[in-house]
């Protein structure tokens, strides 16, 4: 009756995996065909991009009909893009901004999430509302004033300027960490206070290590959003040597003289390489993080 490879059932009060035979139903074949079709549609464009980055392309256009395997394998596109554009510098900038984002954002968020979850002090509710309000006001509509503030602080074209506005508000991560912290026992704080530990130390030494799962989840989502962010880094890091990989790439693909086809492919491949490596090694984890947070870039 069951179509599930394993169902959970209770034996002596313990959950046990019971393997049942899968009864094949005709609808499954239809489902698999459609699922595979969707997977092929998802894979083809990326495959084409990678294949063409290794192809010898002598013109500004890609070969038509499309090739899905390089006939004349070459690293030439990669050396061209590395010599003629600042892609390596762009990648470095992106890495620095992303690392900064993760560190600042998660440190600030985990501390604030802890305080909002475990703290007892007057004005907690209004302060929480003040911080969460930045989730209601999208970053996009505050673009110009924020840029003016960053400029007035002399932080435009600095890595710090790229990270600061996002990290100092961090509302979403604060909210997620607060929710996680709510399920941690209050008694740890009480006993630490009795032992005379300061609140900050309690946070750092007792609660922070317990937040592992949520911090890992938010690290994954923060890395993905900040690596792929285009609008803000493009505005604040506008000097060519400061551009992140996304804005560097968009400059390359949008340039009016028409970039060399193989070069754009190679540059695109380089831009997705770091996240792809992370994705391959942590795929299951990333799927879980997305399901848990619902975050969307």
């Amino acid at each position, binding site marked *: 009756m069951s179509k599930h490879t394993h169902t959970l059932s209770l034996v002596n009060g313990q959950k046990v995996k019971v393997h049942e035979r899968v009864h094949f139903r005709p609808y499954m074949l239809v489902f698999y065909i459609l699922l595979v079709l969707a997977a092929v549609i*998802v894979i083809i*464009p990326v495959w084409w991009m990678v294949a063409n980055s290794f192809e010898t392309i002598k013109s500004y256009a890609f070969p038509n009909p499309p090739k899905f395997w390089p006939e004349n394998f070459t690293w030439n596109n990669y050396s061209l893009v590395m010599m003629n554009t600042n892609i390596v510098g762009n990648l470095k900038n992106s890495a620095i901004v992303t690392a900064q984002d993760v560190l600042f954002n998660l440190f600030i968020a985990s501390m604030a999430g802890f305080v909002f979850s475990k703290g007892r*002090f007057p004005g907690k509710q209004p302060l929480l509302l003040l911080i969460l309000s930045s989730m209601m006001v999208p970053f996009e509509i505050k673009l110009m004033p924020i840029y003016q503030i960053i400029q007035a602080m002399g932080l435009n074209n600095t890595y710090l300027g790229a990270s600061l506005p996002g990290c100092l508000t961090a509302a979403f991560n604060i909210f997620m960490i607060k929710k996680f912290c709510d399920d941690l026992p209050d008694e740890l704080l009480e006993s630490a206070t009795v032992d005379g530990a300061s609140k900050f130390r309690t946070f750092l030494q007792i609660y922070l290590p317990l937040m592992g799962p949520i911090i890992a989840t938010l690290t994954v989502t923060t890395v993905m959003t900040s690596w792929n962010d285009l609008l803000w880094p493009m505005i604040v890091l506008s000097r060519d040597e400061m551009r992140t990989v*996304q804005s560097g790439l968009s400059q390359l693909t949008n340039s009016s003289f028409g970039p060399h086809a193989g070069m754009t492919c190679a540059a695109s491949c380089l831009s997705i390489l770091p996240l792809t490596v992370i994705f391959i090694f942590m795929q299951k984890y990333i799927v879980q993080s997305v399901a848990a947070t619902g975050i*969307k870039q």
Partner: protein
Amino acid sequence: MQKTVKRQGFFKKYGEWYLMLAIPVIGSIMFNIYPLIVNAFQSFKNTAGSWVGLVNYNILFTDVLWPKAIINTLYMGVIGVGLSIPIAFLLAYMLNRVPFAKNAFKTIYLFPMIVSIVAVSMVFKFIFNADANSPMNLFLQMIGLPKSDWFSGVSTSRETVMIMTLWKSVGHAVILFFAGLQTMPVELLEAADIDGANEWKKLWYITVPNMKNTLIFVFITNSIGALKRFADVYAIASEYGQPGDTLVTIMIYIYRKSFSTLFYKDLGVASAASIILFLFIIVITVIEMRVTGESESLISNSRKRGAR
């Protein structure tokens, strides 16, 4: 005297909590409240900084590009949400009903999420080239349809961008729907099996009603995202929004008015446009809170927790 003692006691008792919150509180004021207020004031001022009342709003609404930007944004939003939710839901539903390789499919569908939109646009510009020999036009030829201009056609550019965005973001919705389906009790479907319900009836009468909350969540986040549409159209058409201004969205309009190097800049008008966009988003957020109910909304949730 006593008052100072009391105050010292207050800080001794609570001071550390406040100190630990200092950074995000200052940050929220600096990068959220203050910019919002500045924006609101800016929308009533001219470029020289003097108060001009509603002139900027007047300029905005007489600009021929502005209604186009709103129409483009809404049109692309409707197509995008209308395509992605049913497709993602069906994929998730099928995934939930097959026995093997669920995780492999989920991983593949999610992969485009990590590919930056700029790289994606480069590939899609090739696949959907207006050239008669481009992959998609060859495909149309194969099934006997006339060639299309795709990104470069006034009547097809917005739809083509939505195909690209669908490709990139469908996996995200699939994952969320799948997670929702997993929490649905298996007994419901098994009971329906016994009653002899067919797949379609099970989907429509059991699964969809049970998934209401997830559906609303995905719908709302996608709608808000659609109002702020920037990266995908920018990656395709830069700030020009060509062909025929079909790819000028509200955010592209604001970007052009505030940061462009090629078009006439006007901060006041950009702020007015930002305020209008903000109102749009507020309306959707309020609808969200109404629909999902007070108990599930963000604020009431935290209020409930805080009251302990």
